[in-house]
């Protein structure tokens, strides 16, 4: 249970959401705003009002492209992208039904591959995502095929010699 969303974000991630005076510069520069329900400025307001459920179940927090335009423009030096990444982690930890399941699936698969190999492996990642995501299997297939035909998704994975050490980092970072 989260009592005070703003305080929790500050305690765990160091960002001061309460400094926002709603100038909207973040929102004016957000490239994915048209796909969002609220946008960054309203999300910050909702955090201040401690609307925990609405914030943590919103798909907005998964639609952020991580471009840091908001963080760059904020006159109060709030790293809004970092706040959104914090909200993602809190939404998962608190067991919310995630607004963008395919985005979460992608991140989980990506880290799953890195945990095993120490490095990413696009062929495994693309294949697993294709099978497990909600996007119909045959939709968006040609992109993967075009990459494959040009030898850009090697079938055999690359493994770092320190894969064991990387796995240890995963174990100690849970």
């Amino acid at each position, binding site marked *: 249970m989260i009592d005070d969303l703003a305080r929790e974000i500050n305690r765990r*991630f160091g960002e001061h959401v309460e400094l926002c005076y709603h100038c909207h510069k973040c929102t004016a520069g957000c*490239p*994915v705003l048209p*796909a969002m329900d609220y946008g960054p400025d309203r999300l910050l307001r909702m955090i201040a009002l401690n609307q925990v459920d609405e914030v943590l179940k919103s798909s907005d927090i998964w*639609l952020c*492209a*991580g*471009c*840091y*335009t908001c*963080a*760059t423009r904020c006159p109060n030096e709030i*790293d809004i*992208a*970092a706040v959104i*990444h*914090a909200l*993602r*982690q809190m939404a*998962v930890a608190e067991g919310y039904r995630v607004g*963008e399941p*395919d*985005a979460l*699936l*992608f*991140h*989980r698969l*990506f*880290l799953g591959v*890195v945990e095993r190999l*120490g*490095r*990413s*492996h*696009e*062929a495994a990642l*693309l294949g697993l*995502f294709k099978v497990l*995501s909600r*996007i119909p299997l045959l939709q968006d297939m040609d*992109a993967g095929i*075009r*990459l494959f035909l*040009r*030898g*850009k*998704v*090697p079938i055999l994975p*690359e493994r*770092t*010699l*320190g*894969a064991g*050490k*990387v796995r240890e*980092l*995963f174990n*100690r*970072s*849970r």
Partner: protein
Amino acid sequence: MAYAYYPGCSLHSTGLEYSLSIEAVFRHLGLELVEVPDWNCCGASSAHSLNHDLALALPTRNLALAQGMGRDLVTPCAACYNRLKGADHTLRSDPRTRVEMEKRIGFEYRGDLSIRPLLAVVYEDYGLARVHSHVKHPLTGLKVVPYYGCLLLRPPHITQFDDPDDPQVMGAILDALGAEVQPWSYASECCGGSLSLSRPELVKGLVGKLVAAAREAGAEAMVTACPLCQVNLEMRQARSAGMPVFYFTELMGLAFGLPETLKWWRKHLVDPQPLLERIKPV
């Protein structure tokens, strides 16, 4: 000059032509890249979405490996640069976290490692005059726009590279190669690369806007320094758009007259050869 080199995962897969062109161009210029032994994935862009701790630990292990090499750490990938530089910033400014990471990874953070994007090495260390002196076939008639995307430039207190609102470095390099650099205002707009798999339709919209803006600026090709932007821009543009997206190192190799270029063009999702045929020097 020699550098510690962190290629990142993309350079060995979707960014293959970036990797190949870097090897060829740096060999040609006599700049040595020594790969960080046993490097691991930096975690971009998933670790910081799911696990704050891991998002720091993964790049920190690479910093620990590079620190022992005693050279500047250079990376060609914008996302890796952002994560490595961000981790270094945290270790430098947050002593409690630093101690925790030192324990977890088993190293002592010295804080003397300089982390730099590949563009900076070419521009600052090698210099435009020397780049220009290697040009055999000036890229006259090739109208291009430089495209940086997000992670080389933002957030600026982390990246500390170029002007985040009006970046200059790549345009200056392309100019030294003889290309016709077109002014445009989208050099640091986001292409949506991190959503490319989970939200392809949304990303097609973002890429479509960028490609249209490049076309409107008079460009026939875009040039980038990020493997995630490059594959996203070529993969998510309309098939009819036909806008090739080069790595800046590919155009260096082309202007230097290196024999390997054909291998790079074959890796592109948008074939740049018809365009290059048209501007071929007589």
